[in-house]
């Protein structure tokens, strides 16, 4: 046995290299492949044109999410182009024997929500999808990352992709998180510290007490946002929290297979003295609830802070000024108190049951502000059912909120859920790029607590003012 100390990332990556090409990429075997309606049709077309088939259809899972409506899902999809994409996904899945949770299926939902909640995502796997937030699945100690459509075609036809091995970064956060600070704040804080390109070229391992103490859903939120710092992906070593989450889920191993898998999963951790190409560490106690003010996820700060001056940010001055001009914000002004028009709770970042619990804990007994339009979109039908079972829907209804049906929704505004031009949205999603939530829309990224505080006050509000001591997480 080798005594050379290795990282979690190396262990998983090296176990999947089919061939190493000299002065070229590694040929990497892919255990699980998720597809959705937007980035797969051209890949299937490519396969048809080349006359090649799908090598291992049982390793690919399809769900419709990016382009689905979030109201009246029982009716035919009105937009003909969206309807055509959804139909293409279904017919391709059927033709090649790929399992699919299409629109209307009780298991349907956002790809990065349904994968973990059904036990498809497991430690030590390689997982890809034509979606950059595939990094979410790294929360289980798997190597998971987004790919382009050419690569979707590669995985369908050969179960492999060709990737140069990225460099390795470890981000350690120790200490205790303060009141009102959620995993989303940890992610936004890290990105604000290292910028939106600070981890480009790297695969990140998150380590330290803060992540060890997080639930699986919190870890998914953090790993989901890895791509927003430019990282190829992010991962967290699997532990009892991980194993307890997976056990008993539909596609999880059972009986003897479980014991065998568990024994292997327990070996998946970074050895002491293993070397990273870059090491960063932060103190959990320094993190306050975060909010973004610019047009990339790195332009964020503590909610009580002022918008930085151009001289204080790492982006170039011209790009920074362009960003503030788009938002119609000025340097050195307060973010607290800014009037907001829309609140979006949902997405693969924050569309899970814990996010709805957090949101409900703040709006309980209060009323939605009159100036706010709120879109609350569960990540899946399973999340939607939990919201109802736990009485969260009653709390939301009482406070004047409505629940929509699952999908990616306003996170990327491919469907009708578009924030109008010039309007401000506080969103729990992952990107505040120009036009991301609709042409001309202005997005401030934040946690479910901040979104809830804004939803009941109508302005950017520090959620800590609304959290009862006993309700603090």
């Amino acid at each position, binding site marked *: 046995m080798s005594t050379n100390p290795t990282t979690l990332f190396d262990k998983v990556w090296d176990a999947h290299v089919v061939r190493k090409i000299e002065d070229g990429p590694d040929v990497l075997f892919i255990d699980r492949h998720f597809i959705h309606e937007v980035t797969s*049709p051209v890949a299937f077309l490519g396969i048809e044109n080349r006359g090649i088939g799908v*090598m291992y259809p049982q390793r690919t899972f399809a769900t419709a999410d990016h382009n689905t409506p979030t109201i009246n899902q029982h009716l035919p999809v009105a937009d003909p182009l969206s309807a055509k994409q959804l139909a293409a996904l279904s017919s391709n899945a059927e033709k090649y024997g790929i399992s699919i949770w299409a629109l209307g299926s009780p298991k349907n939902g956002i790809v990065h929500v349904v994968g973990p909640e059904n036990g498809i995502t497991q430690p030590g796997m390689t997982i890809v999808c034509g979606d950059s937030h595939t990094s979410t699945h790294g929360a289980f100690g798997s190597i998971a990352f987004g790919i*382009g459509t*050419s690569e979707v075609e590669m995985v369908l036809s050969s179960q492999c992709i060709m990737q140069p091995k990225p460099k390795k970064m470890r981000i350690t956060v120790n200490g205790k998180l303060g009141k009102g600070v959620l995993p989303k704040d940890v992610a936004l804080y890290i990105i604000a510290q290292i910028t939106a390109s600070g981890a*480009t070229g790297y695969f990140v391992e998150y380590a330290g007490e803060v992540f060890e103490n997080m639930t699986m859903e919190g870890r998914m939120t953090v790993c989901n946002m890895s791509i927003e710092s430019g990282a190829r992906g992010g991962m967290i070593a699997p532990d009892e929290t991980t194993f307890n989450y997976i056990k008993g889920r539909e596609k999880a191993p059972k009986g003897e297979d479980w014991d065998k898998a568990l024994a292997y999963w327990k070996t998946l951790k970074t050895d002491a003295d293993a070397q990273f190409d870059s090491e960063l560490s932060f103190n959990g106690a320094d993190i306050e609830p975060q909010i973004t003010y610019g047009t990339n996820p790195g332009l964020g700060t503590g909610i009580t802070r002022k918008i930085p001056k151009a001289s204080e940010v790492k*982006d170039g001055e011209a790009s920074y000024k362009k960003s503030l001009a788009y938002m119609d914000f000025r340097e050195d002004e307060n973010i607290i108190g800014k009037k907001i028009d829309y609140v979006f709770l949902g997405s693969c970042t924050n569309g899970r049951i814990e996010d709805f619990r957090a949101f409900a804990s703040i709006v309980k007994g209060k009323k939605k502000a009159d100036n706010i339009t709120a879109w609350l979109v569960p990540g899946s039908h399973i999340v939607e059912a939990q919201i109802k079972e736990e009485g969260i829907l009653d709390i939301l209804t009482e406070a004047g909120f409505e629940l929509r049906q699952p999908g990616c929704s306003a996170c990327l505004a491919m469907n009708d859920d578009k924030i109008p031009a010039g309007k401000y949205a506080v969103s729990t999603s992952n990107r505040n790029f120009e036009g991301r939530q609709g042409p001309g829309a202005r997005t401030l990224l934040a946690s479910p607590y901040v979104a809830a505080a804004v939803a009941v006050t109508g302005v950017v509000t520090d959620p800590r003012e609304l959290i009862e001591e006993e309700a603090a997480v």
Partner: protein
Amino acid sequence: MAYDKFTVLQSTAVPLPIENVDTDQIIPARFLKATERKGFGDNLFRDWRYNNDDTPKQDFVLNNPIYSGKILVGGKNFGSGSSREHAAWAIYDYGFRCVISSFFADIFKGNSLNIGILPVTVSEAFLDKIFKAIEADPKTELEVNLPEQKVTILATGESEGFDINGYKKHNLMNGFDDIDYLQDMKTEIAAFAEKSIY
């Protein structure tokens, strides 16, 4: 999908000196609804290029007739965000074959190489020289030489080398792609899959 072989490209260039150009800007999500790969160039940089009423924004570089060419020169962290290959398709479909920047987002870089666009990473200093040369003369030509892995500002003769792995270089110069390579490996892949515990 087959693409044109890439060896030496001599062309004027279009400057876009903005940092963090994300793929939502290159092609907004509402234009990702096609089920075939065609026509994406029409919506390249859609919201920077057109007003809401579809009239061109006169101050955007693609609407300025003095700039043209097969090379797009972008600011640092080009192609960040979404993995949509549609961004690379839009750039290719518009007529660009090469993007030069001081720093590329990983997925965009991979997508570009897979469809026959050469992403060239140069130093910030050299990128600045390119921007200045184009500013001084919009008709200035650049030479991107893949065999020699070198980019040259022809007017001044200044040049800089760039990195690319040998495998991808060979592919681009010959119009090969990874799918063909992997099809030839299927026996080896099947043997590997046999041992998989998942």
